[in-house]
């Protein structure tokens, strides 16, 4: 661990996340037969939002959003990006699993203060969705930890670097598939875009966010994308030895996510929950049982 890594790692995640936001808009535009915005568009948007006057709805409103950003940064610190792994030796998968809940919780706290019915519906949807994938995620991580007999991500990555990727190891195939199936829900892309759902509840929790708050929420979203995918890449696609190769893997997974986003409509909340507690949870459970038995 090095102090420069603690600064570098969140910065890197931020840059990559914002770049991904721009890229997703560009690729979506191309699928729509459009030219699309410049790839720097999210940066411009964020600058604009910071320059606007913003209305606060109370102390909790301010605190919640900062809380959620801080939570995101904390998670980033525990995830290795290639060789940059500031804290990932000290914590482990369980720590990540806990702090990953902070970001949605912070948003929930903050937008709950706004007392807009749209945002309260959005929060309840978001928490339900989180509950939906968290269960499978827990099972998947348990399977991983039992298989590798460690809770440290760095060690898991190192073990994969020596052998084959977890996705192709026999007992871990099922959890791997389950992870792929819940990945759109973790990223919040189209079939599971239920907490934002602009056409239903006008962007849900973000409905009262303007100016700085919106910019922070955007940044939190960028972090969330990077966290969701990097975790998958580290755990199942073998991580990487250097930074470029790592982010290439992240990019490929992300592009897959955009394509899923482009060809599906939004699910209803109960349909999404039913889906998440269906096949993915079953596969993850089966995988866990197999791993334990082997």
């Amino acid at each position: 661990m090095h102090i420069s890594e603690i600064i570098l790692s969140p910065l890197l995640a931020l840059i990559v996340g914002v770049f991904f936001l721009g890229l997703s808009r560009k690729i979506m535009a191309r699928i729509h037969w459009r030219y699309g915005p410049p790839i720097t568009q999210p940066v411009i948007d964020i600058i604009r939002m910071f320059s606007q006057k913003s209305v606060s709805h109370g102390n909790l409103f301010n605190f919640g959003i900062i809380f959620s950003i801080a939570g995101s940064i904390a998670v980033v610190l525990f995830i290795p990006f290639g060789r940059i792994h500031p804290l990932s030796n000290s914590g482990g998968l369980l720590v990540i699993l806990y702090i990953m809940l902070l970001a949605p919780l912070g948003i929930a706290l903050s937008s709950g203060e706004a007392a807009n019915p749209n945002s309260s519906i959005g929060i309840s949807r978001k928490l339900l969705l989180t509950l939906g994938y968290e269960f499978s995620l827990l099972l998947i991580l348990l399977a991983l930890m039992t298989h590798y007999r460690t809770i440290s991500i760095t060690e898991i990555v190192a073990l994969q670097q020596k052998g084959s990727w977890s996705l192709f190891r026999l007992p871990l195939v099922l959890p791997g598939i389950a992870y792929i199936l819940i990945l759109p829900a973790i990223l919040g892309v189209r079939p599971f875009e239920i907490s934002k759902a602009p056409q239903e509840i006008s962007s849900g929790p973000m409905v009262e966010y303007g100016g700085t708050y919106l910019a922070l929420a955007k940044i939190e979203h960028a972090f969330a994308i990077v966290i969701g995918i990097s975790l998958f890449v580290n755990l199942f696609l073998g991580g990487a030895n250097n930074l470029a190769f790592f982010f290439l893997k992240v990019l490929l997974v992300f592009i897959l996510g955009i394509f899923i986003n482009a060809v599906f409509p939004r699910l209803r909340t109960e349909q999404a929950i039913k889906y998440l507690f269906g096949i993915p949870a079953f596969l993850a459970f089966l995988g866990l049982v197999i791993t334990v038995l082997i």
Partner: protein
Amino acid sequence: MRELELYYGPQHLGMVGNFSITLNVEGDRIKKATANPGYLHRGFEKLMECRTWMQNFPLVCRINVVEPDHIELIYSMGVEKLAGIEVPEKGKYIRSIYLELARVASHLFGLWAYSNMLGFDTVANWAMYHRDLILDLFEELTGARVYHIYIRPGGVRRDFPDGFEDKIIETLHTIGGKIPDYNSTFFDNRLFKKRTKGIGKLDRENAKKMGAVGHAIRATGMKYDIRKIEPYAAYDQVEWDVPTRKGGDAYSRLLTIRDEMIESVHMIFKLINKMPKKGTVYTKTPNPFKWKIPEGDAYVRCESSRGELGLYIVSDGGKKPYRAHFRTPSYSHGLTILENILAGEDIADVGNIMMSLYVVAPEIDR
């Protein structure tokens, strides 16, 4: 769970047109829905009483912005009936072709709105692009993209330009070639079926009771179409079928709309083949400033892309209409039916149901 009052519209991404619904919700479930129209009320029927018969044309087409053509037609039909004007044969054909093009354009707009409600941007973008191709045809024919003012009492304003028929055929082939794409991404998509089947169910009895028309009643299996029942323009000259579905839910309504588009395109091809090559396209009408129409009243109706469109028009023998009242299809759909079938549904399905009924707000408010 706490009951919340949620304002759906008028400023809302899931709202097409300036319309608002107040929802009483418990969690995601709607307890009660109250439609709240009037954001677009301009008092058309009052303004028409202050303008001469011909001056009203630019006004009436603005009643429905999505599809002004049928409103032009219904007003022309009313004036023709009161004044006893006949439409020449070729004029009738041109009217039919033009109206069917308008129907396709309007349904594509509906498809945009609908897929947008489901969060299906891709199809929404495609549909809007294809609608634009048809608007290009309108622009060449009439000089305007949106408000064409092409139909006039006694026929249409002018003949098709040279080679226009070929252009229509070419454009429609371009759009028709993409139907497989639409089917595979949208209509056959499993999630689309999951989202629409059984949603916004309107069975036959309720549909009749609440005055459903157009595709809302055709989706319950009845071939109720004014073009067949009371043919106007040249709809009785060619063979065509009324597409129906059995389900009565949003899925059936959407597929009815798709089949209707395809049927319209086929009908346009048949009409172009059968259209007389020569002849006038309109009957001369008197000087519009001095034109007086004999006393009387009439009710005329036609099939717009959302259903039965009617006009009750009264003349007192003067230069101006004494009273005109439009019976618009969205009126019953948007106020009576929407309020009734929204209760008990999910919030996620408000836009879904509203656009599957194809409610267009300016038509309600007038």
